């Protein structure tokens, strides 16, 4: 990469003003906010109870009582989508968390330590990247049993090298900087410098990548669930809803429409948010997008 990936820190008020003026950021924030709110509300209230199946009321069309209709078990689809949002968000967040939690320490450590540590990390990265991600996730869930936890692990593993690489690149470009050199001259250890100076300066970088990985995580979870390898019933998941809708699509197309739209809207919102963040946090990159 010819670009120096580290962002120039900007004064805070300035950032806020710019953020609010950024169209992508605003739309993304609102859309993501709505989805997150929906998931939050579902903890306390959903239009209908989905734990007790009402099979007799199956596959009803849209009505005031069921704005998105009912599924093949007679459950309210809107309620399913609200609770499904919880599942998607939880899987994606934890998967990103795993990626950051392991990747960032590894990446910054490799950058600080250099030499064999750096080399070893990059080689391990090579191995992980050599595995086709989706297929490996399928294998992991098939081996350890389908379920949300294993889906999280399967998706999370592939986030580790992504964050390790980003953190390493960011850190490497910082180490020769004058303020770091000054800190070293004052006798601070590498670990302390990493925590005090490196991390705060790569946060925005990680934030942008985190948003992107978050969106990818939601897509990956939907894919695994579609194959029956994600969260298991009674927990609703958007991907499995689509799988179950597929046979019934000609009879009740709304079964496939709404979960699909939920995925598209959520991923779109996150991507816009990520783009917006990038624009706001690093003006130099703005012309790129």
């Amino acid at each position: 990469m010819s670009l120096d990936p580290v962002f120039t820190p900007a004064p805070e008020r300035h950032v806020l003003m710019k953020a609010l003026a950024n169209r992508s950021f605003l739309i993304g924030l609102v859309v993501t906010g709505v989805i997150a709110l929906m998931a939050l509300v579902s903890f306390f209230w959903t239009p209908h109870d989905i734990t007790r199946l009402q099979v007799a009321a199956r596959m009803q069309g849209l009505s005031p009582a069921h704005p998105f209709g009912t599924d093949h078990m007679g459950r309210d689809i809107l309620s399913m989508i609200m609770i499904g949002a919880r599942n998607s968000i939880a899987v994606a967040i934890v998967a990103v968390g795993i990626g950051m939690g392991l990747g960032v320490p590894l990446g910054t450590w490799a950058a600080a330590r250099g030499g064999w540590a750096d080399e070893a990390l990059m080689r391990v990265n090579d191995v992980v990247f050599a595995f086709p991600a989706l297929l490996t996730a399928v294998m992991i869930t098939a081996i350890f049993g389908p379920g949300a936890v294993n889906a999280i692990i399967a998706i999370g593993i592939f986030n580790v090298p992504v964050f390790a690489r980003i953190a390493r690149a960011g850190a490497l470009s910082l180490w020769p900087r004058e303020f770091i050199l000054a800190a070293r001259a004052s006798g601070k250890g590498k670990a302390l410098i990493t925590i005090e100076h490196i991390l705060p300066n790569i946060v925005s970088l990680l934030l942008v990548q985190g948003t992107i990985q978050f969106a990818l995580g939601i897509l990956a979870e939907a894919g695994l669930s579609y194959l029956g390898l994600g969260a298991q019933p009674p927990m609703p998941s958007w991907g499995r809803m689509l799988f179950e809708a597929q046979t019934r699509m000609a009879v009740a197309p709304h079964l496939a429409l709404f979960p699909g739209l939920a995925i598209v809207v959520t991923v779109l919102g996150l991507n816009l948010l990520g783009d917006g963040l990038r624009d706001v946090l690093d003006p130099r990159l703005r012309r790129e997008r």
Partner: protein
Amino acid sequence: MTAYLAKRLAVGLATLFVASLVVFSVLEILPGDPARIMLGMNASPEALDALRSQMGLDRPVVLRYLDWLTGMATGDFGRSYTYSSPVVELVAERVAVSLPLAVMALTLSTAIAIPVGIFAAARRGRLSDTLAMGAAQVGVAIPNFWFAMLLVYVFAVGFRLLPAGGFPGWGEGWGGLWQGFKALLLPAVSLALPQAAILARVTRSAMLEVLGEDYIRTARAKGLPRRAVLWRHALRNALIPVLTILGLQFAFLLAGTIIIENVFYLPGLGRLIFQAISQRDLIVVEGVVMLLVASIIVVNLLVDICYAVADPRLRTGR
């Protein structure tokens, strides 16, 4: 240059070796007894034992690993437990579906994305750019299997123009080829859409970056026509990031078609693995995964070579 490539090659081989260890040891812990699956619920213990020793399942793990490794080096990937035919044959049958599918999807997405990306870059900030990039944003967000479901219901069930799934084989003559092509068209389109969206965005930003460089400004200042600058100078230099993404996407397409293959029940590599896992046909899983890992490594190596050719600074090593 040679040193650089030699290093990449060595890294690739080492990766392959480590991957073989990982694949083999992970699959060894997979629960499920292939012999029992082959014989079914009511098989007698003697028949099971007989079959296990026939398949060599009673031999020590280390020996089996070494056999498998040397076998692969000589092109012998073993025999499928479930189909009792050589893994190489099975894989060859599946590659005849997966490879054309990947190539079709990639061709399609490249054919759409690169012109769109260049077009958007050239008209940066105007309405057409905004629309194109908005469409790309949506395209990235659409799960390809959902898109596939919609396509099936419109083109296969609704208009009955194209098959809803299955693969008749490549057949004989042009007619047979056409049948095969038709069967792969909807899957290829479903795979191409999200990829095209990503590629269009990358192409656009790569173009914009190049267009901002001094030498392009110089070229424009020299009075070269806009079109010539765009195509002759800018595109060539913007190709590097585009190529990287293309390499990644090709690698993804070889193995990542598993969901689409399920939607269209295509007998491709992804489905082979999926089936083999559920039937505990470990030797097939191991073989195909290794093959995919190897092809990803090769693709990455090719991209590295292109990098080195395009950017002399990289040749001195990283």
